[in-house]
């Protein structure tokens, strides 16, 4: 897409219209003394390079390998994740929810786009879209089908609607055949979607 700062010549497209509109807004707010454009650069860089689902994957891999950490994570995820040292601090109210053979968890925000940014980064477009937000609470199995995921018979679904400032991360089940794997290798199985509940971890064969 058009990341080029010097070309606003896509006349008539939403992209060029928005590029100009947002630039005008930024200019006004900077000239008013409210914002520093250098701070905006730093925010964008952080979300493009530092904050993302790789953080959540480390949390899940650690929980898979360390029962004491898993216990602490389920008790108080904000505290446990900070102790892991991936980030300076994690906001309060992070809650880890554990999948079991009988129960699959899925997170959604039907009212807006609440999402555990600190451990998963910015949400993908589909998470914020009307199809997901409308159907996740009434037809989660249909949602899983959209992701080509079928759960085993006998697995019920629990959907968590993020209607307050509590944030959820799904702790998926550790795939079989990963005995003795390092945390780093385990983390490579953990996808963003399996921490939202719209996917399952990769199979060991996929990363071998």
């Amino acid at each position, binding site marked *: 897409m058009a990341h080029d700062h010097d070309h606003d010549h896509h006349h008539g497209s939403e992209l060029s219209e928005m590029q100009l509109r947002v630039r005008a807004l930024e200019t006004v707010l900077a000239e008013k003394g409210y914002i520093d454009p250098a701070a905006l650069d730093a925010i964008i860089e952080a979300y493009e390079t530092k904050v993302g689902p790789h953080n959540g994957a480390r949390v899940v891999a650690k929980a898979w390998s360390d029962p004491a950490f898993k216990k602490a994570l389920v008790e108080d995820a904000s505290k446990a994740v900070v102790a892991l040292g991936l980030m300076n601090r994690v906001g309060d109210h992070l809650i880890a929810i554990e999948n079991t053979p009988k129960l699959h968890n899925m997170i959604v925000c039907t*009212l807006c786009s609440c999402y555990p940014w600190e451990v998963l980064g910015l949400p993908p477009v589909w998470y914020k879209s009307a199809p*997901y937000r409308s159907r996740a609470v009434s037809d989660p199995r249909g949602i899983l089908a959209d992701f080509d995921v079928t759960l085993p018979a006998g697995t019920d679904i629990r959907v968590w609607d993020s209607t307050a400032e509590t944030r959820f991360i799904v702790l998926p089940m550790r795939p079989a055949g990963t005995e003795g794997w390092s945390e780093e290798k385990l983390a490579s199985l953990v996808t963003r979607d399996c921490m939202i509940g719209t996917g399952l971890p990769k199979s060991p064969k996929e990363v071998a």
Partner: protein
Amino acid sequence: MDGIHDMGGMHGFGKVDPEKDEPVFHAEWEGRTLALNRAMGYTGIWTIDQTRYGIERLPPDLYLTASYYKKWAIRLEKLIVELGLADADEIKAGHALRPGKTLKRKLNAADVPNTLSRGSFARPAQAPAGFKPGDRVRTKNIHPETHTRLPRYARDRVGTVEAIRGCHVFPDTAALGKGDDPQWLYTVLFDGRELWGQNAESGLKVSIEAFEPYLDPA
């Protein structure tokens, strides 16, 4: 408000269409828009619920057709004018025509790493919690014209308190800029059939995070 944003349970929006290898931002202005919102939020001029209410008040046709960050950009223009931080003629001109107001603080690049984690929404309780885990509750049948976090699909429904999440800023009040008004927050669990009737997906359970003013004993 009973707006288009309250989408839980609606039909007709079609399948979820995940984008393979989706970039963090699809255009440069999306990143600038996110960062502008964060930097303005840092100045302390609004609460998170005021920004949500800003999106909810967009015209429904625009809400459904504008991309996510386009909504954020339009919301930002709107709130800036509503809060008296700039005037519409300045936004149109793309330049400040009058001096800015003095705000509480300004975000510098060096401070950005410290702003990436969320603040706490927990507040000291004004009264003991009215419910405990295991209590049966009925959500209220309310239709405020202003911001609320009780979704329509979960109003006037019976569920079970699963957990107490502490005492938090109450969005319905904070969205109006009227202070924190702390209230107890609970995870309330519903059976799928209570929400969607007898044809609900077998075994489905859905929870919401419900503030005490949304709940009555059942």
